[in-house]
């Protein structure tokens, strides 16, 4: 048993080494000195307090998105629509803040309502994918993809149209909210402890939900064999819907964080790809919720570190994306190879 474990770690290490080698190859093909590129990425992560807080600030929405897709993955669903769910969360939060910013409510209450609105917005968009899937027979991948486009278009419409800045027709974003509607960031850092707390809480809740509750077990049963789950008494379509609702709610919270703690306004790219990245993280950790936090942190760090590249080396920052994607591919591939090898024995 022990021996097998070590062997597994060995395989995973091999996957990481292979991913690094492949990324190096990509760098060489692009004509960039690999070592310097990696150094720059590392510097981008660790060289200052600002960098570290930036990483943590990026970690929060990624953690929320990862926690969300862990739920849908458990139910056997590929919630590609999470990007749109983040977007709708951001739209709802922005809408709530705009509606209430001139009211007599205190900033704190407006923020609470804004987060609830974001949660609801994401959940609605998730439920829509769920309804399409369970009642319309539309595969959640296609439904989600379509809803992503609709969400982006909707946000663009709002940004240019009804919520546009006075006198300017620009897609760059809505007016920045007054600072009392910003999630408080003490010590002049870019990180809100409230957001950080929310992200960690979500990961912990999802971990326990999937691990030790009847809800989680039923969700897994539905994900692995719908027909058997139904015969065992699980209300199956309801559980698929719960999964979409919960994932959408968490994605909506990620959108709310993006609006209140990062951009302080609505921009068309507010989801920043954290939804897709969350899917990658979930695959990389083989859907084990316990690993969500550390690996999401690593991916957030790569995201932030990559920003250094265009500044320092006039390279595109997508190197991090290459490494992130390659890592998942190699881990999946090596895992497949491992299973084949162990089976052969």
């Amino acid at each position, binding site marked *: 048993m022990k021996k097998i474990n070590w062997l597994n770690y060995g395989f995973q290490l091999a996957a990481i080494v292979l991913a690094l080698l492949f990324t190096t190859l990509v760098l060489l093909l692009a004509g960039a000195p690999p070592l310097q590129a990696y150094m720059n990425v590392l510097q981008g992560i660790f060289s200052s307090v600002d960098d570290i807080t930036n990483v943590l600030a990026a970690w929060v929405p990624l953690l929320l998105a990862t926690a969300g897709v862990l739920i849908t993955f458990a139910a056997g669903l590929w919630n590609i629509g999470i990007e749109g769910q983040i977007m709708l969360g951001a739209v709802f939060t922005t809408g709530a803040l705009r509606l209430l910013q001139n009211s007599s409510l205190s900033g704190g209450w407006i923020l609470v309502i804004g987060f609830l609105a974001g949660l609801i917005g994401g959940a609605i968009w998730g439920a829509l994918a769920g309804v399409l899937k369970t009642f319309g027979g539309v595969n959640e991948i296609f439904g989600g993809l379509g809803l992503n486009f609709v969400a982006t278009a909707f946000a663009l419409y709002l940004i240019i149209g009804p919520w546009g800045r006075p006198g300017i027709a620009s897609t760059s974003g809505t007016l920045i909210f007054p600072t009392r509607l910003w999630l408080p960031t003490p010590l002049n850092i870019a990180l809100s402890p409230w957001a950080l707390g929310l992200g960690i809480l979500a990961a912990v809740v999802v971990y326990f939900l999937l691990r*030790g509750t*009847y809800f989680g077990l039923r969700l*897994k*049963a539905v994900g692995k064999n719908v027909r058997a789950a139904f015969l*065992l*008494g699980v209300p199956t379509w309801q559980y698929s819907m719960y999964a979409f609702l919960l994932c959408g709610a968490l994605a909506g919270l990620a959108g709310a964080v993006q609006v209140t703690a990062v951009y302080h306004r609505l921009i068309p790219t507010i989801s920043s790809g954290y939804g897709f990245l969350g899917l990658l993280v979930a695959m990389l950790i083989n859907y084990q919720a316990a690993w969500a936090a550390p690996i999401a942190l690593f991916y957030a760090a790569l995201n932030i570190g990559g920003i250094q590249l265009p500044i320092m080396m006039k390279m595109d920052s997508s190197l991090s994306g290459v490494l992130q994607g390659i890592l998942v591919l190699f881990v999946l591939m090596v895992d497949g190879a491992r299973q084949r090898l162990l089976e052969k024995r």
Partner: protein
Amino acid sequence: MNIELRHIHKHFGTVHANDDIVLNIPAGTIQGILGENGAGKSTLMKVLSGFIQADSGEILLDGKAVIIKSPADAIRYGIGMLHQDPLDFPPLSLLDNFLLGRAGGLFPDRKAAARNIHDLAAQFDFALDSEAYVDSLTVGERQQLEILRLLWLGARVLILDEPTTGISASQKDKLFETLRKLAKQGMTIIFVSHKLEDVEVLCHKVAVLTAGKLVGEASTPFNTKKLVEMMFGRQISLGARRSLKPGAKVLELHDLAVEDIRLHLANISIDVGAGEVIGVAGMEGSGQGPFIRACCGLIRPVSGKVIVNNRDLTARSYHDFMRNGVSFMPASRMEEGLVPGLTLTEHFVLAEESRGLFIDGDKGRKLAEERIKSFNVRGTPVSTVESLSGGNQQRALLALLRTPLSLILLEHPTRGLDIESTIYIWNKLKERCQQGTSILFISSDLEEILQYSDRVIVFFSGKVTPPFDASELTTEKLGELIGGVGWPGSVDEGKRL
């Protein structure tokens, strides 16, 4: 073709699935391979047909040593295997299924192939339409298709893995006739089964496997007692039939009508008393499946009433039936019954009614340990269900049934299981009956129907007989009824039970 297996070894992890198997099969022989579940029969056949490779040992075909690397390789050597679950492509037509395995050309000669199918089918008196889609065929017909396909590909050795499970009596007769004919033509037939009677009737010689070892060989005439001893190391006989006085009505069907794509079943009326066992017999695909599913809300009846414990549950969902003490156990264990990837403990926890939000891990484990013990499942609480063998999966499925229950509906409860598992499972079911649970079960095994039912209903192409007292039926009589012979009165649709 003469086949020689020399010192075949195969390990799966710590399991020695084939332990030094030595076996010679001359051309023109029908060789039976007997053994209970997990004895290593399938492994040996997979080695011979190239699905897996032996760890060591040699295969000689007509005296020449060969290395068979894949099923495609095997068929090039003339070895074709018919799997227990037909390996065909249900959404494709028969003709496409034929052409798929055939090497050659971007544009296959469909006309010639269709002609070949037709000729071959005629030769063995199979009624197969080359343009029909495979998913419209019964298991028996799919088997016929597979035999033709293998012959067409030039097989000179046919391996059949449990070919008589899931097919009707008349299809079985036809299969045996075909196999005998093929053997006469010099083909080598390997017939893998745990059904003694089939092997005795058909085979020229028999090899018995137990726990991976070849424990004995015999040739005709066979001594049944000795074969059973070799298989199980002791003698087993089916328990004596005993009937129970049925109690209060548990299930009432009034003029039930059920439809599926091919069949229309009408006017089924029957009362099932507490503790009663109703056997549902008939050729596969005669409407038993839709019928039993309509009895528990999995299929909505077209008309009529389903009443459970005096409550009208017509057109209610399966979960409503569950709440009223009805449980359904499907035939396809891994597709419908169990959740691959979940452990036994997780299954037991899932099947019980939940209390609160959090699962009590200790309680779950205790429950699992207790059930595993009392149902004799060879596995641990943390074993995933797919790691269990078929018989153990079936026992696990049985262990998942809640207590108490008013009615259990079963599809082929012992299909593919050895005698020991069958007896075990029926003992468990009969225990339930004594507590007042009624049972309705579908089976294509006549012995099983007669052995365990109190009353029997027979389906024949969408028609249903009134219930017979099982003690009044014999195997011959039941076989006839299943084949549509000797039906009481007129058996037109609309006949009341």
